[in-house]
């Protein structure tokens, strides 16, 4: 890793080399992991039913882009819908508990219960309630996303700038206006952290849920491929999930960074 720094200095002159090195700067970790994988599979001569090489996975994706794309679209759509709904419910509940002492008393412990439930343990139960299909997958993603939204928004609604709470009290702000003009804006940075965590998790949660019960999507593709001992395809599905999860995480990170700049 350390040899990257001097290289970087000299590479700036040429644009292409420069941008390559710039991306190396952020991608070295992933590169190391992939190289270790390749090296390890080669060295220990593992059969593909145990572990294929990175290239096997890539070539499998290349040979059947249609299958991958259909599954990806399905999972992505579900994850996004669940994320939106979960963030909405979590934020709304956090706001409700902020608004009313009684609701706070009634709902906070329940929110905490839901927030602390190991959701995967609930999959069998939810599957019974919602059915063995995408509705349960959606429910899982909603619960997973609900969790950080509730926790972080609750904290953010109370992380007010110095003296601002006093200010709003002397301005005679109604609870609603205190919420709208103070607490909600103050909570935006923390909310962005929640989004960051939830965005990455939503894809993964959808994948686990599909794995256990779905009939479509990347999790199902993984499950079916594993049943056929087609590990290249199984890992291909995982790789796609990884990529979209990382991309949504990075997009949410960018959003958070922007928010933080404008909020302090």
């Amino acid at each position, binding site marked *: 890793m350390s040899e990257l720094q001097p290289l970087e200095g000299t590479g700036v002159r040429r644009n292409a080399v420069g941008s390559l090195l710039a991306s190396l700067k952020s991608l070295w970790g992933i590169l190391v992991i992939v190289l270790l994988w390749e090296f390890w599979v080669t060295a220990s001569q593992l059969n593909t039913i145990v572990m294929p090489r990175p290239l096997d996975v890539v070539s499998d994706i290349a040979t059947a882009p249609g299958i991958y794309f259909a599954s990806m679209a399905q999972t992505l759509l579900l994850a996004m819908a669940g994320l939106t709904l979960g963030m909405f419910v979590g934020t709304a509940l956090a706001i409700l508990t902020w608004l009313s002492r009684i609701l706070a008393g009634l709902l906070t412990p329940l929110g905490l219960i839901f927030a602390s439930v190991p959701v995967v343990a609930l999959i069998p139960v939810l599957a019974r309630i919602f059915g063995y299909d995408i509705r349960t997958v959606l429910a899982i993603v909603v619960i997973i996303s609900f969790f950080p939204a509730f926790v972080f928004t609750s904290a953010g609604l109370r992380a007010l*700038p110095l003296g601002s709470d006093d*200010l*709003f*009290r*002397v301005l*005679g702000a109604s609870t609603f206006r205190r919420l709208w003009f103070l607490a909600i*804006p103050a909570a935006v940075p923390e909310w962005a952290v929640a989004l960051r965590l939830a965005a990455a998790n939503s894809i993964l949660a959808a994948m686990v849920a599909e794995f256990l019960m779905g009939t479509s999507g990347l999790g199902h593709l993984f499950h079916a491929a594993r049943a056929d001992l087609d590990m290249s395809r199984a890992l291909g599905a995982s790789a796609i999930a990884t990529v979209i999860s990382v991309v949504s995480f990075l997009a949410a990170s960018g959003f958070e960074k922007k928010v933080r700049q404008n909020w302090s």
Partner: protein
Amino acid sequence: MRISTLSPHSSRDLNAAAAPLIRVSEVTKQFRLDDGREIQALRDMSVELGQSEFVALLGPSGCGKSTILRLVASLESPTSGLVEVNGRPPAELAKQHRLGVAFQDHALLPWLDVAANIALPFKVAGLPVDEKQVSELIRLVGLAGFERARPKQLSGGMRQRVAIARALILTPDVLLLDEPFGALDAVTRRQMNIELQRIWSEQRITTLLVTHAVDEALFLADRIIVLSGRPGRVIRTLDVPFARPRHADIMRSEAFHRLCDELTDALETPVEQTI
């Protein structure tokens, strides 16, 4: 809304320019530190402000001036004693959006620009923002051109001026100012004093001003109250004799200088300073 009852038992009616609108009576305020020790910020403090009266508080650092303001703003409640505005708990005043406050630490919202920070009281009161008045006040505090700047892009004095503008924007019934001009240079401060004087003369807002500048207190106030060191108690009350409207020239007068010296002497009374 501005009915105030005259209490026949009040011993300070003579000092008050009108019936007491704000009454702080026999208030003691204690704070507890982390290590369990009690700090007595105020002891048996009584202050009254009549309708449309302008009172200035002078006193050494840490004597409880900000605490008095916070009591009147209902941000603290007294350990013992009574705080009333118009015979009612002070919180009601705030609820009716009739209170204007400039805090010692400005308390600007970091995510709003200058114009939005100043317009905030409108929004909080649920009123339409009077853009003309906002830009008029921005001009008045000398921040024209900085409407879109955010607090972290302002100098210390500029931030303070935003806080002053925000306190004035709703033409409140009661104005509480905590060293509002502390971060300003003498010239800007003088200008601000004159503007405040003008606004007060027009609107006759009942005002409680904490300041460290004796001349500022004399120029602006009807009555000046000097507090002792902690725990704060009233050690001197002065009715300012200058007629209104006051021109900046009075600051050069003999009487002004004499009163200045008198108050300065009062402030220099040896300080008790127990924790």
